[in-house]
C-alpha cells in the first residue's frame, strides 16, 4: 500500500512534536524513520497507525480496490496520483500500479486504528502475558466478527505458517515470560503479520536487544521483507541500523524532516548540518566565502573556489575519512600537527591540530602496511578535504522560530571549542 502524508501536525501541550510533515511512501518499500529522541519519529509512526490523533494534516492510503474490500467500501475515496516532489523518489516507484483504473486513494486521517488494518510492533513488544505464543499470534484473527472469522483449524494452520516464517516453530505452547528478547520480538512480528496488514510499522524494533541478537535480527528482517514484500516502516535512532536495513531513510529532527533519500543519498550528500552530524562525526571548520573564494578562518591560502556559494561566514563539513594526506607542494592544504593516534581494527585515527586556527580535526586513514610512513605524535602533516559541504552560518541562527536549536548549538559549540 502507498502512503501519502501531507502537512501533519501534532502537539503535546506546548511541545510541537510534528511540524508539518510531508512524506510519500511507496508500496513495498522498507523505510527508516531516523532521528534522535524527541525528533518526532515515533509520533509519526503512531500517526500512520492511527494511534495518535492528529492536530492537522492528512494521511492517505492508496491501494488497488478489491484487494482490501472492507476498507475501500467504508471509506471515502478520491483518485489522484501522489505528487512526487523534487526529492528522491521512492526506491520502488510503481506507476503502473497507481495507473490502474481500480486504484484508489483513501483518506485515512479519521479512520480508527482498527479500520486502518496496520501491523504495529511495539518497542517493548506488548505481548499478552497471559496467552501462549499461539494465542498471541491468533489474537488478531480470533477477535474478528463471527462471519469474518476463520475457523479454528484455519487459524491454527495460519499461526503455524507464521511461526515457521519467524523461525519459532515448536514454541506455540510457550508463554511470553519463557521467551528470550529476540524470540518475543519475532512473536510480536508474527502477531502483527497474522492480520495481513496493509503496512508493517515497527517502533525501535531492535532497541531492547543486545548487540549480537540485534545484528542477526536485522539481517533476518531484511530477508523477511524480501520474501513477504510488505510495505515496512521502522523507527530507529541508530544510523547504522537505518543505513543497513532500509531502502530509503527519512532523517527527522525536532518535528521536521531534514532529509529523505536512499541510504546512499543521505550518507553521500547530507542536505543539512544536522544530517551531517547525525550520520557520523564530521569535522566542522569555520570559514568564510570572499569574492568567490573559500577561506578557512585563520588561514591565508584559498582552500577552493567556492562556486555558487553566497558570500559570508560558512561552516565546512567534512568527514574524517574524506580528508586526504597530501605533500608539501599542495599550497591549499591545511598544515597541522599530529597530537593523537589511535588504531581501531583496520582504521587509523589521527587527531590533528591545525596550525592556522588551532582547531583539532579528526582524520581516518586505512591502517598503513609496514612500508608506509607511520604517524607519530608531533609529526607535521598536510591534509586536504577530498569532499566537503558548506553550510552558511548566518542562516543557521535565523532558521529556528523558537530561537533555540540544540543541533546548531552543538556545531557552534564545537566550532568554538576548537578555536
Amino acid at each position: 500500500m502507498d502512503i501519502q502524508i501531507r502537512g501533519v501536525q501534532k502537539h503535546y501541550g506546548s511541545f510541537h512534536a510534528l511540524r508539518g510533515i510531508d512524506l510519500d511512501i511507496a508500496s513495498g518499500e522498507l523505510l527508516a524513520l531516523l532521528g534522535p529522541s524527541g525528533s518526532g519519529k515515533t509520533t509519526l509512526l503512531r500517526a500512520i497507525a492511527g494511534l495518535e490523533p492528529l492536530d492537522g494534516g492528512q494521511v492517505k492510503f492508496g491501494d488497488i480496490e478489491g484487494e482490501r474490500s472492507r476498507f475501500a467500501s467504508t471509506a471515502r475515496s478520491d483518485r489522484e496520483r501522489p505528487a512526487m516532489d523534487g526529492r528522491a523518489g521512492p526506491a520502488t516507484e510503481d506507476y503502473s500500479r497507481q495507473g490502474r483504473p481500480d486504484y484508489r486513494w483513501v483518506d485515512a486521517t479519521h479512520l480508527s486504528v482498527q479500520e486502518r488494518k496496520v501491523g504495529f510492533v511495539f518497542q517493548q513488544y506488548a505481548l499478552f502475558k497471559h496467552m501462549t505464543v499461539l494465542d498471541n499470534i491468533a489474537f488478531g484473527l480470533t477477535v474478528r466478527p463471527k462471519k469474518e472469522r476463520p475457523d479454528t483449524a484455519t487459524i491454527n494452520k495460519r499461526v503455524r505458517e507464521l511461526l515457521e516464517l519467524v523461525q519459532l516453530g515448536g514454541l506455540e505452547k510457550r508463554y511470553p515470560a519463557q521467551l528470550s528478547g529476540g524470540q518475543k520480538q519475532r512473536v510480536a512480528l508474527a502477531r502483527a503479520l497474522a492480520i495481513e496488514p496493509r503496512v508493517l510499522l515497527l517502533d525501535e524494533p531492535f532497541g531492547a536487544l543486545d548487540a549480537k541478537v540485534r545484528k542477526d535480527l536485522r539481517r533476518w528482517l531484511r530477508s523477511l521483507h524480501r520474501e513477504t514484500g510488505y510495505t515496512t516502516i521502522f523507527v530507529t535512532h541508530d544510523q547504522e541500523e537505518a543505513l543497513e536495513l532500509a531502502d530509503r531513510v527519512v532523517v527527522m529532527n525536532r518535528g521536521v524532516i531534514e532529509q529523505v533519500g536512499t541510504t546512499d543519498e543521505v550518507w553521500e550528500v547530507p542536505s543539512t548540518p544536522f544530517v551531517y552530524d547525525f550520520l557520523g562525526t564530521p569535522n566542522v571548520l569555520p570559514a568564510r566565502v570572499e569574492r568567490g573564494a573559500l577561506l578557512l578562518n585563520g588561514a591565508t591560502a584559498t582552500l577552493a573556489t567556492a562556486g555558487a556559494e553566497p558570500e559570508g561566514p560558512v561552516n565546512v563539513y567534512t568527514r574524517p575519512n574524506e580528508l586526504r594526506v597530501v605533500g608539501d607542494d599542495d599550497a591549499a592544504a591545511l598544515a597541522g600537527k599530529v597530537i593523537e593516534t589511535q588504531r581501531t581494527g583496520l582504521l587509523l585515527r589521527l587527531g590533528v591540530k591545525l596550525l592556522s586556527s588551532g582547531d583539532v580535526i579528526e582524520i581516518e586513514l586505512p591502517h598503513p602496511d609496514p612500508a608506509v610512513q607511520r604517524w607519530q605524535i608531533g609529526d607535521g602533516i598536510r591534509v586536504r578535504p577530498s569532499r566537503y559541504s558548506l553550510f552558511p552560518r548566518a542562516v543557521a541562527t535565523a532558521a529556528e522560530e523558537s530561537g533555540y536549536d540544540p543541533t546548531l548549538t552543538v556545531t557552534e559549540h564545537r566550532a568554538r571549542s576548537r578555536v
Partner: protein
Amino acid sequence: MNHAVKDAAFLPFEPLKQTNSVINEPRLVRWLLIAAALGFLSLFLLLPLLSVFVEALRKGAGAYFAAFSDPETLASIKLTFIAAAIAVPLNLIFGLCAAWAITKFEFRGKQLLITMIDLPFSVSPVVAGLIFVLIFGAQGWAQPWFGDHLGKVLFATPGIVLATIFVTFPFIARELIPLMQEQGTEDEQAALSLGATGWQTFTRVTLPNIKWALLYGVLLCNARATGEFGAVSVVSGHIRGLTNTMPLHIEILYNEYQFVSAFAVASLLALLAMVTLAVKSLLEWRYADQLAATHRSGG
C-alpha cells in the same frame, strides 16, 4: 504448569536460608529477632483471636450453636451479607472505572479524583455515618424527596448499604491503580491495532492482566464490608432483627452480658476473616507462576 518456571520460583529459598554469609547474624541475634517477632505476633494477634473462640466455646458446643438459632442473630448475619453483596459489586464496578480512567486517560481533575478515592480512608467512619444522617435524617435535605419516592433510608437497610459502600469505597480502586499504572496502555493499543473492539480489549487483555489485583481488592473489600462498625452504627438505629449487622449485634449482646452469644457471633466474623486470608494465600500459592508473569515488566 511448567517445571522450569516452578523451579525458578522456588530456587531462592534454598541458598538464602543459611549460606549467605554476608547477612548471617550471630545465632543469638537471629534467635532474638525471631522470638521478638513471634512473641509480638502471638501477644497482639493470635492470643486475642484465640480468646474469641475460647470465650465462645466456654459453655460447650451446644451453647455455641444455640447462639446461632436466635432469629435476631440470624437476621444480623443476613443483613451483613446483604450489605456486603450490594457494596462489593458496586465498588467493584466503580473501582474498575476509576482505575481505568485514572491510569489510561489524561484529564483535568485527575489528582482530585485520586485524593477523593482516599477520602474514606482518612475520614473517621463515625463521621462517614453522620454524613448520611445529615442527608437522610429527619431534618436532612434529601429526606423529603427520598422518603416520598423510595422509602426510608436512615435506620433501614439502604442506609446501612450506603454507609458500607462509603467506607469500602477505596479498596478495589486502590489495589488496581498502581498495577495498571505500571502496566501502561501498550497491551491495549496492541489489541486495538490487531482489530479488537474496545470491549474485546477489556475482557481479553485488560481484565486478565489485572485479575489478581482485582481479586485481592474484592477480598479486602468484602472483609471490611462485613466487619464495618462505626459508620454502620451511626446510621443503623440498632433496631433488633431489622437494622443490626453482625458487628452491631455483637456489641448489643456483649452489653447485655450474653458473652457466649456475643463471642459466638464474633467467632463467625473472625472465621470469615481467616477464610479470606486462607483463600488469598491459597490463590497466591496455586498461581504463583502466573502472578510472577503478570508482574514481570516487558514480558
